[in-house]
């Protein structure tokens, strides 16, 4: 299903190309929105580059959906501006704003067939702008071809699968020739397998339509795998913006580190811009001569189990071994620390029989990110 029949897809994409303007740039400046005392968005500034696929990533309540809805014009904001190619979008009606919005639960019209759902946006246009019935039918069929649902025109939403509904919602949003495409948790309601398939398909679709696209997700893997750039949000504010590799390699804050997951956290004391983690010294991020409490993060694959006799690092005891996948995950306990540490080690170490449960070893960190604690 993932592999589009190339010819059909590209001809459908060309069809969209014909009706498309150059991709739109979105400038968001100092956006603010609150519900009573709760600040849903606080001073959010962000630029979405033309034709980019941008992910808004964050835990629930971080304001990512509010931001998406504000861009769409579904939620009113109290401060700041949103510009589409320099034009103030906050004063535009939804009709003039022309955003394609795909809802998390798809929000398909249940009393309409798949065809009628996709045609809806064309049929509600003012009479003078409305394409003729034949033209509408042609465009709807093209779009259904693009999302690989040709043949399902006459079905009702209740008669198709979750993944198919998702694609109908997408085709419906694309039918209005949107200036930007916005997707709220596009894979949130799907099971794991369909999710993976749709993910790479959406990436391809984005390449073909070239639309400026923003999607919301709480799944870091999804965001890093799919997006050109990722915006990490926390408590209504932007925590970090960057390409997936920037975010992964240089997480700006402890929050980003923890949110990306797969890390062990150590509370350490820094001296002159350095701190000791598991027996090795590492430099602090930023401020170079900071002294005081700091937080250190070490990813599982940055932990090394070293041979006993070298007596490097700190002593630890193996508590569990999970020998699945390309690497072996080892759970270790270290004296003076409550929670266990996970280390990813090469399979050879496991095969050689050195990872017995209860066995004492030494561990050390090969890399660590250290942040001054406020």
């Amino acid at each position, binding site marked *: 299903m993932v592999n589009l029949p190339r010819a059909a897809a590209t001809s459908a994409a060309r069809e969209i190309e014909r009706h498309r303007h150059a991709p739109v740039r979105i400038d968001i400046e100092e956006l*603010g929105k609150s519900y009573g005392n709760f*600040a849903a968005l606080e001073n959010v500034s962000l630029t979405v580059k033309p034709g980019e696929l941008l992910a808004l990533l964050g835990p629930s309540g971080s304001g990512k959906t509010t931001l998406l809805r504000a861009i769409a*014009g579904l939620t*009113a904001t*109290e401060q700041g501006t949103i510009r589409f190619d320099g034009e103030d979008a906050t004063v535009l009606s939804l009709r003039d704003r022309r955003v394609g919005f795909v809802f998390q639960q798809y929000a398909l019209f249940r009393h309409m067939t798949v065809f009628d759902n996709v045609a809806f946006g064309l049929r509600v246009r003012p009479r003078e702008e409305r394409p003729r019935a034949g033209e509408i039918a042609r465009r709807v069929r093209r779009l259904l071809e693009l999302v690989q649902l040709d043949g399902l025109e006459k079905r009702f939403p209740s008669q198709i699968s979750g993944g198919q509904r998702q694609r109908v919602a997408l085709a419906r949003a694309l039918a209005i020739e949107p200036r930007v495409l916005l997707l709220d948790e596009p894979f949130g309601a799907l099971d794991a397998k369909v999710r993976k398939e749709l993910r790479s398909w959406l990436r391809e679709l984005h390449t073909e339509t070239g639309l400026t696209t923003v999607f919301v997700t709480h799944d870091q893997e999804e965001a890093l795998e799919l997006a050109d750039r990722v915006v990490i949000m926390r408590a209504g504010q932007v925590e970090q913006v960057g390409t997936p590799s920037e975010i992964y390699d240089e997480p700006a804050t402890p929050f980003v580190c923890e949110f990306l997951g797969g890390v062990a956290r150590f509370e350490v004391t820094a001296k002159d811009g350095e701190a000791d983690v598991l027996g090795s010294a590492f430099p602090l991020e930023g401020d170079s001569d900071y002294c005081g409490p700091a937080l250190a993060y070490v990813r599982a694959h940055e932990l090394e189990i070293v041979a006993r006799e070298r007596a490097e690092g700190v002593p630890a005891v193996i508590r569990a071994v999970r020998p699945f996948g390309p690497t072996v995950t080892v759970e270790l306990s270290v004296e003076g620390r409550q929670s266990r540490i996970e280390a990813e080690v090469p399979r050879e170490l496991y095969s050689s029989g050195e990872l017995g449960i209860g066995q004492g070893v030494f561990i050390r960190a090969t890399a660590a990110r250290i942040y001054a604690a406020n």
Partner: protein
Amino acid sequence: MSANLPAQEAAHIAPRPFFRTPVTEAPLIKFTLIAIGLAFIVAMIFLPLAAVFFEAFRRGAEPFFAALVEPDALSAIRLTLFVAAISVPANLAFGLVASWAIAKFEFKGKSFLITLIDLPFSVSPVISGLVYILLFGSYGFIGPWLIAHGYQIVFAVPGIVLATIFVTFPFVARQLIPLMEQQGKGDEEAALSLGATGLQTFFRVTLPNIKWALLYGVLLCNARAMGEFGAVSVVSGHIRGKTNTMPLHVEILYNEYNFVAAFAVASLLAFLALVTLVLKSVLEWRYSGELAASSRH
């Protein structure tokens, strides 16, 4: 961040002018719709209700109370209470029995059976009376035999009771069936597995779960039983002091141009309806979760 900012910044924070959530109507349209909707409710509901009380007290309180305590009125009140006292418990018992059989078991033809129980809702009250005349009248199927043996059914109290049971037949059952279906039978199965007998299960597990819905059904059943006019009118024979219920008494007074008395008795019935409405609303507000959401009439 927003709640207690100084006043000069408040303007900054006020919602943007002209922005309206895309799924609401413009204020002018909204107020027009509210005005039309409420005007309609006032004209159709509140005005008639007010008119009843206004007409009843048109000549002051004295004729009003005089109309309520005269012997025929008192006997009509007594008969109405008597009829309700029989028909409501009868339908209560039927409702419990039927909803147990229908909601707690799976069988073919269930929805057809529910349709049959609902039948009286779509039968004219006049026809509900007529059917008993065809059965028990002096020219009816078994009427002549019964009358010969001294049993007068129609044009007597038993006929009134029967007709009332007919028109109020579905009230309790249709309240309980959806609720009990929704609740499933897990509680009952648990009770039985713990060694309770069938009756213990019913009284200790099932009944507490449905008590508010049951009360709700009884309330509506009672209101209809006391207020029924058409069906009772056909089978009553209109014998003053004997087979006149309150609604029939109202009609007789009205036809005799005794308007104040007619509206006095009518206002007593209207008051009863208001009490019913208040209790019903209280049940809905307090125990909405324990009334089946699917059926509010």
